[in-house]
């Protein structure tokens, strides 16, 4: 009876963890992709990347990622998530120094990571095999 209760608890725990991870990962990557796409549309049409709007949006993007990264760290290997944080930090720096080309490159990488991180973090055939 006691073992049955433990097993039930384990099953519930496993299910809850899997569900939480999937919601967190897909929610984070979807939101990040959306925000970076919005940022892309703003920056592609502007000459400078050091405007108040772009800088704020870039900072918001970076803060959003940092908050979510703290939660994702419970589920995903820290090393697998490093690149996103690095690119977002670079974007802040490029925005400050108004180097549009590097800024756009980093933004493209961020968009790319949003798609490919699903393979690393989420449930996918590539992960399974």
């Amino acid at each position, binding site marked *: 009876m006691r073992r049955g209760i433990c097993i039930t608890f384990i*099953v519930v*725990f*496993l299910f809850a*963890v899997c569900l939480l991870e999937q919601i967190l990962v897909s929610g984070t990557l979807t939101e990040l992709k959306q925000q970076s796409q919005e940022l892309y549309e703003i920056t592609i049409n502007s000459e400078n990347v050091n405007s108040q709007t772009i800088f704020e949006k870039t900072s918001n993007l970076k803060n959003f990622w940092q908050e979510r990264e703290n939660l994702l*760290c419970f*589920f995903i290997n*820290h090393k697998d998530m490093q690149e996103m944080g690095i690119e977002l930090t670079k974007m802040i720096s490029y925005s400050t120094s108004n180097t549009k080309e590097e800024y756009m490159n980093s933004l493209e990488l961020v968009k790319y990571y949003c798609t490919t991180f699903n393979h690393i973090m989420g449930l996918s055939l590539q992960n399974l095999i």
Partner: protein
Amino acid sequence: MITIILRVLIIYVLVLFVFRLMGKRQLGQMQPFEFVLTLIIADLATIPMAEISVPLLNGIIPLLTLVFFHFVLTTLTRNSNMFSKIISGTPVIVINPDGIDYDAIKKLNITIDDLFEAIRSAGYFNICDVQYAIMETNGKVSVMPKPESSPVTNYDLDIKKEKTSLPLTIISEGKFMKDNLSLSSKDKNFYTNLLKKYKIYSIDSILLLTITKPGEVFLQQKNKPCKIINLE
């Protein structure tokens, strides 16, 4: 470093919990699927221990998944003979009254030397003494000797002996075992008075005191020889 220490402690407690949950069979003679499980658990536990970048859940989740899967497998093997045969196999008679079953040992992929080693481990050095030898599903060999080679029992010699019971440990390393105390139908005073008869005034000095139903007491103090006392 503190992080690593804490991680090691958490994983250690979890692995202990996992083995306790799997039952005593896990620690004794293992079936093939249990042996596989033990090997995997050992490896899984070490992954998040020393590598801080790996989340602790990466060790916890696989361990708990294996516990659950083990529970499912053992339930299925307990409730289904067919499933039990698929997972654990069946015992195979390797020696019968006609001698060694060559087809059986070929199917089991063992050599004659392996068979002899197993029979010697069972206490029989001469194959002529063996009537049946069965290779169990956990790899051990059980031997049934021929009647003329089997150990003599009291029954064979028509010797009648009194019934005995399992010895109860009453005092172990200076402490009363409360559950066994109640089973022995005697209270602490009885034992303290018994000890006083042998000039022992404190139970702290007692290494072991056991009692069996007919009234045989094994008493040993720390760093002293034992005494066997008959209460009747």
